[in-house]
């Protein structure tokens, strides 16, 4: 017994002695003036890879373009982009990897990972933008280092619901089809509250879309029983296109209203004729909306032997999300400050409106210290003749 106690004491005291001595010199990441490290967490092959790939291409395209233009204040962006396949633990691992490599800002992707990392990024003071426009991320009190560049899913749903209310004569029966994840559920509560608050003549039911379903006939049968005339979809393009095809195949009298992630050329292309007449709420101007902000992208892409028509609206989205981060970084460097997470946050909050050439929302994106809601305006488009035809632009929920 004595021997065991002796060994235990020795081991414990050795452990205490070791932990008490200073940890290895933690790198404070002082700014040395070289390339600017930025980490990108991308979904190329996961559940949302269909739209994640062009978005990621857009980000990398922007970086390639700005570096060839001489970088930001003479400094290039050194971006690392890795696929996390829409898996939250992988995103956490990539985040730590980027952090260790000294990234000053992170470009994320989905709602699940953005929300899961939001506590971490605020503790680590790393500005985080993503393609998730969940309302919860716009409040600096809750998520001080998350920046939401586009109108939130809730705002998009409000615009969509307003459009439905105007379009319908009697009480509009709406089936809300959503991805069964934090991303899909994000706007639901706000949409219901909006109907209540504005007294819209809408009755809405929510239906989670089972992942990996071959078709949505069962879900549509339930929507039909509800008497739905409109299907509001918060999901990515491929499943949304399946819904459109199922509606056509079943000869149902329903009209699709898509939010952000299925409002694109991919949806129209995949669904073919079935997409005709669908309404698309999209905060980023597609090539058919022809904004001046498209010019740089077009010039860059034609040099690469491609075109915006081929790449689609999510390319624009990735490009301009990176643009907004780059503008924040530019502001820090122009002010002559050391490049760090808090400095970029401060710059984004105080620099005033960032011009996007009419591409994002109502044309500019602006953050403040009490709101990280960059924009509130969305465009409403209709699928006609195989392309996105603008109905209204810069619609804010009112």
């Amino acid at each position: 017994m004595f021997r065991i106690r002796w060994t235990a004491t020795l081991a414990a005291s050795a452990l205490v002695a070791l932990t008490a001595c200073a940890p290895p010199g933690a790198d404070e990441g002082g700014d040395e003036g070289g390339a600017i490290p930025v980490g990108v967490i991308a979904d190329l092959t996961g559940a949302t890879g269909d739209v994640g790939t062009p978005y990621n291409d857009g980000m990398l395209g922007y970086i390639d373009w700005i570096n060839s233009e001489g970088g930001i204040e003479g400094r290039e962006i050194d971006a690392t982009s890795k696929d996390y396949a829409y898996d939250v633990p992988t995103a956490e691992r990539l985040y730590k990897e980027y952090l260790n490599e000294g990234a000053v800002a992170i470009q994320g992707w989905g709602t699940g990972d953005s929300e899961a990392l939001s506590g971490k990024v605020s503790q680590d003071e790393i500005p985080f933008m993503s393609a998730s426009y969940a309302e919860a991320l716009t409040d600096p009190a809750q998520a001080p280092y998350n920046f939401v560049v586009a109108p939130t899913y809730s705002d998009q749903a409000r615009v969509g619901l307003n459009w439905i209310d105007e379009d319908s004569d009697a009480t509009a029966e709406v089936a809300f089809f959503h991805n069964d994840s934090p991303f899909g559920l994000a706007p639901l509560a706000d949409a219901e509250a909006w109907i209540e608050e504005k007294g819209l003549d809408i009755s809405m039911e929510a239906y989670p879309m089972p992942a990996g379903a071959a078709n949505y006939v069962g879900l549509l049968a339930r929507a039909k029983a509800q008497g739905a005339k409109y299907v509001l979809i918060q999901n990515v393009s491929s499943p949304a296109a399946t819904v459109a095809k199922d509606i056509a195949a079943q000869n149902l009298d329903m009209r699709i209203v898509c939010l952000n992630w299925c409002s694109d050329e991919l949806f129209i292309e995949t669904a073919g004729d079935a997409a005709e007449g669908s309404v698309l709420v999209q905060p980023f101007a597609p090539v058919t909306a022809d904004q001046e902000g498209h010019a740089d992208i077009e010039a860059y892409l034609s040099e690469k032997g491609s075109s915006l028509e081929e790449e689609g609206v999510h390319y624009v989205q990735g490009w301009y999300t990176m643009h907004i981060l780059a503008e924040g970084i530019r502001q820090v460097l122009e002010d002559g400050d050391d490049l760090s997470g808090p400095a970029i946050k401060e710059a984004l909050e105080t620099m005033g409106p960032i011009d996007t050439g009419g591409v994002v929302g109502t044309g500019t994106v602006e953050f403040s210290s009490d709101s990280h809601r960059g924009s509130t305006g969305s465009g409403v488009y209709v699928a006609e003749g195989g392309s996105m035809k603008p109905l209204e632009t810069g619609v804010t929920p009112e």
Partner: protein
Amino acid sequence: MSATATGVYHRSYRRESALRHTKAEYFRLALMIVGLLVTPYVLDNYWLSIVNTILIAVIGAVGLNILVGFTGQISLGQGGFLAIGAFSSALLYQRADLPAPLSIACAVVITAVAGALFGLPALRIKGLYLAIATLASQEIIVFVARRWTFLRDGSAPLTVDRLSLGSFEIERQYFEWQWYWILLTFAVLAVLAARNLFRSSLGRSFMAVRDQDIAASAIGVNITRAKVTAFAVSSGFVGLAGALSAHYTETVTWEAFTLDVSILYLAMIIVGGLGTIAGSVYGAAFMVLVPVFIQETVGAVGDSVPVLLSRVPAIEQVVFGLVIIFFLLFEPRGLAQIWQRMKDYIRFWPFRY
């Protein structure tokens, strides 16, 4: 059984019941201790974060091995039990303001109780049928975690404040370093506890149930008690892993506890070695490192073969499947057995045995 154990004679009972008998074993223990003490000083933060993930996985894998490897009760509910541990500890720490050690301890107890409850079907069914019953528990727990708004902060997932206890608080720049010592302590205690559990009558009753339950009951093992206790003890370990992961990752979301996680843990103990505690450790380390090494390798050769870069998750899936098939075919007793054979080979060299 290892061949190394032959030729060792004991002159006292205490000597016989020691965990280690030979000088070589003590030497390896010393080597391992030195290795563990040096680790945080040689690895950078990224690699240390991976080691920390491994340490949490070790606790979870040890827990699962107690149930699957030692008691012979298959479980697909690992992810669900991790979720119970994580959510309980996070809620108690965050909403009820309990100090961290207390909230973690409560989470262990809560998960153990839940495990015993979900283990009740094991009293009536075995094998494949039990697998499906535990699959149901996985789905039920994750379903509740998905739908119950109490388990979220408004519309955001539950966040956990940085760990603090009294005047001690985890610091930002030493985050991984401080967590390493905390997790290492828990992992070492878990491994020691599990190792000794199977030298006690309770642990031996688990193994009797695994080997032949009817014979076990004939020699006086209370099967009901053994099975329910096995579920409780195993879930207790898993709950500890879940609680630690909640404090370590600082966010608790159901997305980290899906069926994939249950399968991953099963893979860990299959690859490591069913029914060995050391195997759980090797397996946990191996399965956490596989995706990391794939990414590193692809990153290294990615410039010459760019098509690989965009296929990393797909490659991971393929390798994951191949690894399991490989071990089931060539070494069903896992890494622990491979390690054993290596030791024997060196010991008897140049003879075969």
